[in-house]
């Protein structure tokens, strides 16, 4: 076991923290707010560890951990992986704080917080993993935590149904993924990622690639493998939905790119595939969101569409070798974590205080919870790409970079993207309208929002605006990630 210990430190924090929180909950205190603080502290430590790691790695020589033979390692600190892991931990931190009050509805704190930590630990391990075996293990860890968290409201039948559906589809996904890994192993004889140049994939390798693409495609909700998502994201507690829609899906998608390129799948073909599927994702996600009446299902379908935007820009970047488009993709990942997370958290508060689930029940949010109405509006405006919010800046980068496409497919994709952003307005705006509609009863009670929930909302709302207005510093972050991915594709 050699290598840079800092690479593994965040994982140790998260996994160790999960056990520690469980023990604290069982033997020391059962209080929700204290457990939330503990969890938040663990996330903070993990985030600091990642930040330190970020300063110690250089783009030329990536730090690794767990060297067995030459070129083999357990974990590798790739820039893109570091970015996504930091986002996940950051969002986890806010979700934990948020749960400090939100979860009093659900109770069973001793399982919730450890599961949240394991979810993020699985994600971090998955994106950092440097071989397929570890990647698979961490992917399962993340998935199992997610299944349980989706069904966390175990007394509501729909939650159990959603969790079960997610479990079945997710397990099928991971099993197919595992099958793909075994095919790859049969051909290559090792599982290192990225594989050393060994020429084109053979028959087994191609079959393996197809399996891996399908398996991870389920995880990243690529249409038509997305059917679990609206149920799972729509039924989970809002703090969990924020994690699922904000980072989990995107991290699975990043893993898909990393594995495909790492195993030698030609970047150009991968890009074409992604552009073609992105058209489905964008159109289907937005069309289905238009007809939803349940707020969370609407947001879940909008996630399907958002993944489509991500696939499109990454696809354009890979197909035409445009680092700028891939950079825009990473920027979009960042924005989605903010906007999607904020939207779900905002929705959760209204559910917490006045039990709003459908869009109509959100009427009067502005009168009852002004802060929530404003933050929710910022999130929805960001998702709808209204200037000057972050989502607009993200789409701006996508389109300006996408215009360098050298043939029609890229332009078709961009045209579909623009039409879809129009389609998106069709459901984001009525939702905003519902927030500011007069309350159904006269003299609706005005609630005082708990600071546990207010702080994450304010932080994320401010970030959505700040990132939209001044994207400069955040862009630098994504440049390294993009160039790494381009390098990987060569």
């Amino acid at each position: 076991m050699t290598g840079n210990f800092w690479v593994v430190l965040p994982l140790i924090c998260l996994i160790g923290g999960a056990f520690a929180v469980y023990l604290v909950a069982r033997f020391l205190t059962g209080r929700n707010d204290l457990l939330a603080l503990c969890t938040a502290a663990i996330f903070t430590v993990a985030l600091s560890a990642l930040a330190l790691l970020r300063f110690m790695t250089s783009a030329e020589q990536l730090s690794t951990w767990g060297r067995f033979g030459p070129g083999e390692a357990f974990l590798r600190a790739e820039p893109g992986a570091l970015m996504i892991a930091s986002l996940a931990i950051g969002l986890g931190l806010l979700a934990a704080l948020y749960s400090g009050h939100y979860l009093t509805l659900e109770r069973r704190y001793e399982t919730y917080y450890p599961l949240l930590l394991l979810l993020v630990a699985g994600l971090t391990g998955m994106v950092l993993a440097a071989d397929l075996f570890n990647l698979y293990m961490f992917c399962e860890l993340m998935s199992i935590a997610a299944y349980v968290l989706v069904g966390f409201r175990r007394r509501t039948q729909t939650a159990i149904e959603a969790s079960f559906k997610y479990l079945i589809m997710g397990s099928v996904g991971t099993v197919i993924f595992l099958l793909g890994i075994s095919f790859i192993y049969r051909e290559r004889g090792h599982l290192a990622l990225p594989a050393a140049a060994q020429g084109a994939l053979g028959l087994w390798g191609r079959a393996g690639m197809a399996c891996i693409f399908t398996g991870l495609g389920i995880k990243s909700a690529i249409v038509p493998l997305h059917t679990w998502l609206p149920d799972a994201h729509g039924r989970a507690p809002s703090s969990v939905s924020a994690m699922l829609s904000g980072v989990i899906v995107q991290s699975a998608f990043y893993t898909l790119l990393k594995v495909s390129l790492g195993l030698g799948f030609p970047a150009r073909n991968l890009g074409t595939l992604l552009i073609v599927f992105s058209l489905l994702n964008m159109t289907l996600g937005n069309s289905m969101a238009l007809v939803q009446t349940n707020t969370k299902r609407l947001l879940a379908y909008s996630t399907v569409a958002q993944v489509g935007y991500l696939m499109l820009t990454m696809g354009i970047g890979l197909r035409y070798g445009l680092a700028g488009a891939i950079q825009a993709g990473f920027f979009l990942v960042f924005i989605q974590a903010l906007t999607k997370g904020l939207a779900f958290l905002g929705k959760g508060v209204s559910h917490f205080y006045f039990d709003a689930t459908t869009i109509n029940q959100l009427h009067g949010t502005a009168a009852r919870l002004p802060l929530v109405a404003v933050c929710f509006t910022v999130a929805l405006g960001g998702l709808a790409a209204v200037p000057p919010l972050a989502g607009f800046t993200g789409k701006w980068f996508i389109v300006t970079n996408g215009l360098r496409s050298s043939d029609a497919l890229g332009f078709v994709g961009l045209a579909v993207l623009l039409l879809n952003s129009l389609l998106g307005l069709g459901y984001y705006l009525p939702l905003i309208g519902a927030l500011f509609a007069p309350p159904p009863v006269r003299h609706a009670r005005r609630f005082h929002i708990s600071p546990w929930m207010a702080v994450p909302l304010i932080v994320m709302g401010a970030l959505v605006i700040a990132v939209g207005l001044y994207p400069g510093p955040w862009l630098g972050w994504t440049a390294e990630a993009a160039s790494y991915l381009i390098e990987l594709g060569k």
Partner: protein
Amino acid sequence: MNAETVWLLTTLSAPLATTLILVLLHGRAVRVSGWLAGAAALFSLVSAFALLPALQRGDVPTWALDWVPAANIHLELRADWLAFPFLLTEASVTLLAVVYAWGYHHLDERSPIFYALLMLFAVGMAGTTLANSMFLFYIFWELMLVASCGLIAVWGEGSQRRAVALKYFIFTHLGSLMVLVGLLVLYDAAGSDSFSAFQAGIELAPALVTTVTVLFIIGFCVKMAIFPVHLWLPDAHAVAPMPVTIMLAAAMLGMGTYGVLRFPLSIFSMEQMAPFSVPMMVAGITSEIYGALMALAERDVKRVIAYSSVSQMGYILYGLGTLTYEGIAGATLHVVFHAIVKALLFMGVGLIIHATGRRRITELGDLRGAMPLTAFCTIVGALAIAGVPPLCIFDSEWMIFAGGFRTPQLGLAILSLFGSLLTVAYALWFIGRVFFGPRPPGLTVKRPHWAMVAPTVLLAILALIEGLVPAPVFDWVNQALAMILGGNW
């Protein structure tokens, strides 16, 4: 940073700062919110005027900032001659609309947000005219939409307001997206996001020139509410609270014209634009006649005036489409004069609605005795829109028609001239029914608020003065055209 740059920045930052202050103070600023907004609008107008000496010296006040160098995003504001008439119109209309709102808007705990959004709307319009880089332009362009849409959705009149706001947003956003695609193509060709670089000349394939021009013209026509993409306008104008309607009709519609002048006309040459001349003229005349007919058919006073905007924007598009000096100058002048008259008419209509509580023409009549001042002002407005000399619109329509007769399409010119008869018809019919005619039963008249009457009277006087002495405005417009038409014409 010299004085001009400071004035340039204050034109924008005064209303922007007021927006922030009002939002932050929220419930604590209810009583002062209107005054704060009025002060900011006045300051913005004064700043805009203060730019005039610099422009006359031949300077161009500019402010630039390298915002995100990595992504090639620059922020650049620039007050040139083309922006100036539009900026001035926008700032004056905002000030008058805010003053009007003092009387029209009933103060409650949400009033600070109302005025904050009005100010944001003004920021969007001022920013659109001043922006000299693509990113900034688009942000302001959409800010205009977001702010006005919020005002309609929350403070609109009637139960349909949210549906109307949605329709307005989606229609206008569709236009914005077309403009955005056009801008992005120019950006790609010029390799810079500064409009100065676009203006310096862009090499584009002929097919791309056609595509971009079509996108720009359709996109801006949505904002101008030209038939058949005008569908958002009658609803939005009828539902919006009156100060917002005034800003929409008098100032925001002009932004579409500004866009046509700024992009296709000043970037492409006469030869490149020539194929679009006839389609633009035909669309203009169609809109002119359709709007006037619909105004004749409407029974809601606010919608009559709203359709008259569709008709008036038709004149403007026709003038632009002639591609002659007179036509384009007339169209630009018409934006300014139409703003005066349309604001005047909406203010008059607002006074009538406010005083009587009625909106249907069939339920109104014989108001000249009950509200003589309003009657006088509204009649001035109606006569002005009918193009009666010596009121201001006569001058601009004269130029537009003169431009029309300089094109080879004499048939179209004659058609547009006869189309203006319909304008006279609805204008006279409107004042005839509302101020003369039989008095319907049970019509009572409340005393109007001074803050609503004062701007109305001011505008009526202005409509007359501008008609008699159009020289200063004409001179500014001339400078603007000299800038964009250059040696081409």
